[in-house]
């Protein structure tokens, strides 16, 4: 028997999950199809909306005030400020008190593993005590065994960035013996399970042992930051447990990949999707589609060489950008691989990037061009398909990395694609 839903969302990242939740909540019968783990595992878990204007001005204290100045073709210009607020409202509702930031329009500045600060609209509860506009003195801690985050260096860097609080860093040995190449997830699981540690003073849990290791370094610090390894499934327990033992708030500095805050966010959104009543099909890619009269009839998912069609009246394309595989290229072309939607690009591939590492790379803006209803357009400016809408990084026209706008665009366009799709489904 044919598999049929009113709406099929292709892609399981932030935009796809948002679109699916929005469509399901609007009453549609939704299926989300996702090939592999989403790029949330590579993201920081921060939910940014707009941190810098396209001309580089920033960090912006108020992202909403800057929306009106964005150029035509920017996804925010297409969907408008209300959609940004609607997307955030859906997000706030879906993740509940796991995230903070909804109490104000203002951006927060969150310390990064590299020692800079990053503007963001929402941040995990576990990051809340770390904000850079908070003047309490802070201690940063890192572990000998993990690379990429050096707390004394990050502290010196934050000092050079002019943060309004005293910050020191210390490197300690993680108190539990681990494999030589232990990953961040391994460390997190040890803390989740509060594995027992034997020492001269008898047996203690891993969390107590960690607090004991850090306590002598507090020296007046009123908050303590760790790399984002404080638990996976029980992150809240791990953090509050260590907070109680240290007597000061504890926060995580986003690291990655793999990024535990990103994975925790994915879990929260998948749970929200589940309660909204959508079906989910994961693990295999959409490889082809069937269309008639300018409408997509079905997409084909390939598993073990067999193609299964999934029929629907409406489709959402949320397969990501270059990072997620929603936009691909060869030596001469840039293309959208699932439906073959048009992606504008310079002919000469050397114009796809700039020589300066942080230059204005054309590739950063690669993606499909859409109409006001988020339908991808072909080279002549006509909708590719009447019943296909696009959301998230597969959209062109913005550099999410430079603007710090990736999550916000996914939420706003996911919300619009999902609700519009449900309206016509």
């Amino acid at each position, binding site marked *: 028997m044919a598999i049929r839903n009113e709406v099929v969302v292709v892609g399981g990242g932030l935009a796809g999950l948002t679109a699916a939740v929005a469509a399901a909540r609007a009453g549609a019968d939704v299926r989300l199809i996702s090939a592999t783990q989403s790029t949330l595992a590579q993201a920081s878990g921060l939910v940014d909306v707009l941190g810098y204007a396209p001309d580089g001005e920033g960090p912006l204290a108020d992202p909403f005030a800057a929306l009106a100045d964005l150029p035509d073709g920017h996804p925010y210009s297409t969907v408008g400020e209300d959609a940004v607020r609607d997307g955030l409202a859906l997000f706030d509702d879906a993740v509940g008190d796991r995230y903070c930031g909804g109490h104000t329009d203002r951006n*927060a*500045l969150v310390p990064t593993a590299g020692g800079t600060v990053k503007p963001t609209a929402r941040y995990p509860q576990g990051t809340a005590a770390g904000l850079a506009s908070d003047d309490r003195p802070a201690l940063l801690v890192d572990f000998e065994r993990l*690379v990429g985050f050096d707390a004394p260096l990050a502290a010196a860097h934050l000092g050079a*960035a002019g943060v309004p609080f005293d910050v020191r860093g210390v490197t300690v040995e993680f108190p539990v013996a681990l494999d030589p190449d232990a990953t961040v997830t391994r460390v997190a699981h040890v803390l989740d399970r509060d594995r027992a540690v034997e020492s001269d003073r008898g047996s203690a849990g891993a969390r107590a042992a960690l607090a004991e290791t850090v306590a002598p370094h507090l020296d007046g610090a009123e908050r303590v930051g760790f790399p984002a390894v404080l638990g996976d499934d029980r992150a809240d327990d791990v953090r509050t447990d260590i907070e109680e033992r240290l007597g000061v708030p504890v926060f995580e500095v986003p690291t990655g990949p793999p990024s535990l805050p990103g994975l925790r966010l994915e879990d929260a959104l998948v749970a929200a999707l589940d309660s909204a009543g959508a079906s989910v099909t994961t693990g295999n890619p959409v490889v082809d589609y069937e269309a008639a009269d300018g409408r997509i009839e079905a997409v084909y998912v390939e598993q073990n060489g067999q193609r299964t069609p999934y029929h629907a009246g409406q489709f959402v394309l949320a397969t990501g950008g*270059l990072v997620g595989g929603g936009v691909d290229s060869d030596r001469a072309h840039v293309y959208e691989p699932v439906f073959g939607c048009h992606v504008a690009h310079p002919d000469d591939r*050397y114009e796809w990037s700039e020589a300066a*590492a942080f230059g204005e790379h054309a590739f950063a803006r690669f993606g499909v061009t859409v109409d006001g209803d988020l339908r991808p357009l072909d080279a002549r400016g006509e909708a590719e398909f009447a019943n296909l809408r696009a959301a998230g990084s597969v959209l062109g026209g913005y550099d999410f990395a430079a603007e710090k706008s990736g999550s916000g665009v996914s939420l706003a366009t996911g919300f619009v694609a999902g609700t519009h799709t449900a309206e016509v489904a």
Partner: protein
Amino acid sequence: MVDAQRVLVIGGGSTGTGIARDLSMRGLDVTLVERGNLTHGTTGRMHGLLHSGARYAVSDRESARECVAENRILRDIAGHCVEMTGGLFVALPDDDEAYFEEKLRGCRDCGIPAEVLSSEEAREREPYLSREVERAIGVPDGAVDPFRLCVANALAAEERGARIETHAEVTDLLVEDGAVAGAEIRHGDGPGKARSARTPGEREAIRADHVVSATGAWAGRIGEMAGVEVAVRPSKGAMTVMNVRQVDTVINRCRPKGDADIVVPHETTAILGTTDVEVDDPDDYTEEGWEVDLLIDELAEVVPILADARTIRSFWGVRPLYEPPGTDTEDPTDVTRDFTVLDHGERDGLAGFTSIVGGKFTTYRLMAERVSDLVCASLGVSASSRTAEVPLPGSEDPEALSVAMDDFGLTSPVARRSAQRLGSRAPDVLDTDEPNPVVCGCEAVTRTEVRDAIDQAGPDLTAVRIRTRASMGNCQGGFCAHAMATELHPVYDESAVRAALDDLYGERWKGQRHALWGEQLSQAALTHALHAATMNRDGDPAARAESVDFAAFDPGLGDGARREGRTDRGD
């Protein structure tokens, strides 16, 4: 006791460091100056082929014989820098059959072991070879790590008292009474002023009894400073780096000459080479996309999967071709690959000055020996070269390598690769009680190795890269450049670390631009996201002129927020 004679060597490539090692082993007081890092010039920009000599067995038998002799010597004295992959010269249907026979005869005449393989035998050895391959000649080509070899030569020279000064550019030669008496140096102002007592921008006059220019494609410029003409003909060649080894044997196209005719397996990668285009200025030439396309398209005829394989970057090198005045060969591919030692005393009446030009990496040691012989003769030093007998640092004790293969608290593939890179130095570097995590996952480089390289090279992550291969794999530094940088702290301060990271990241980015399509463009987009979106390195307030008004941003719900009475949502 009489003070040792002083020699200044200009150029920190394979030839220059080889000369520094040779002369210091003969008891001379050597200073080497290099305007960039070691291997900054052509040495760091080659495909890593250790010639068997077969490539020259038809056109230039003298070079072929030198190659096979030096090939054997390097296997002895620098085993930890060499991987004996073997090589194949493969013939496709369009290739000239008579040339194949000539190649085979040439190899045998020059003492290069050569065997003929049938199409089936060749593909049994290298399954990705084209089915079109009709037959092949197997020869002892190999892969050599030019960075490691060059650094080992410099270390050996230092062990015998030489001063190795990188980031030290020669601005003028001191000419006194018809002789070169030294050079004016300007010390560099980058983050890589390694271990030097000199401060950036400082000028220094280094006096010497003899000056050697081992500056390759740049020898014309150095010669000009002393008023002598050295007519090098710089010729650029492109090389494209694949993300995996499609072949484990060096694959050569068996035809007289031509672009895009070699694939060299090198560490975790395979390198496609090359093109040959004469350039006016070795510092300023175009790196062109057609060269990358040519390498891929031509070599895909020999190894078809290359057509759609992933490349991680491309780079260009400049050959220091030289021919005596009046030769005027039209096509640069016809210019001899042999080397020439120019005794400017004899040639130009300018005593105390020697240049070496032409030649190739495989014969660097022999070139160094010949130059050193000439220098010693002119200074009245009778000691002879011992560089062919004495192993380089890292290759002294073949046993140490197998001992080092034992567990240093690392997972075994990592230990194996680290130990191979370090050779007999492995126990010293890897034996630690501290946690020793992997810093660069693509190339399996651990923290102790990175720190060892920092001890040697200072706060210059490009120098750390060439010593360890960290940041040279698939991700091109996207995942590891900042982790490498953190290892500089606290020996070097935060601003030095930041500058070093910016330099390494920028250098990795530039080379990667020649590979930006398909998977590597996806990788680059991820790298961009990690460094710009996640770490906000592009918006770093510490690097921007205007300061941030922190009070304008969300103060959170901690004490600051409570003071403002916003306790409705608690933490």
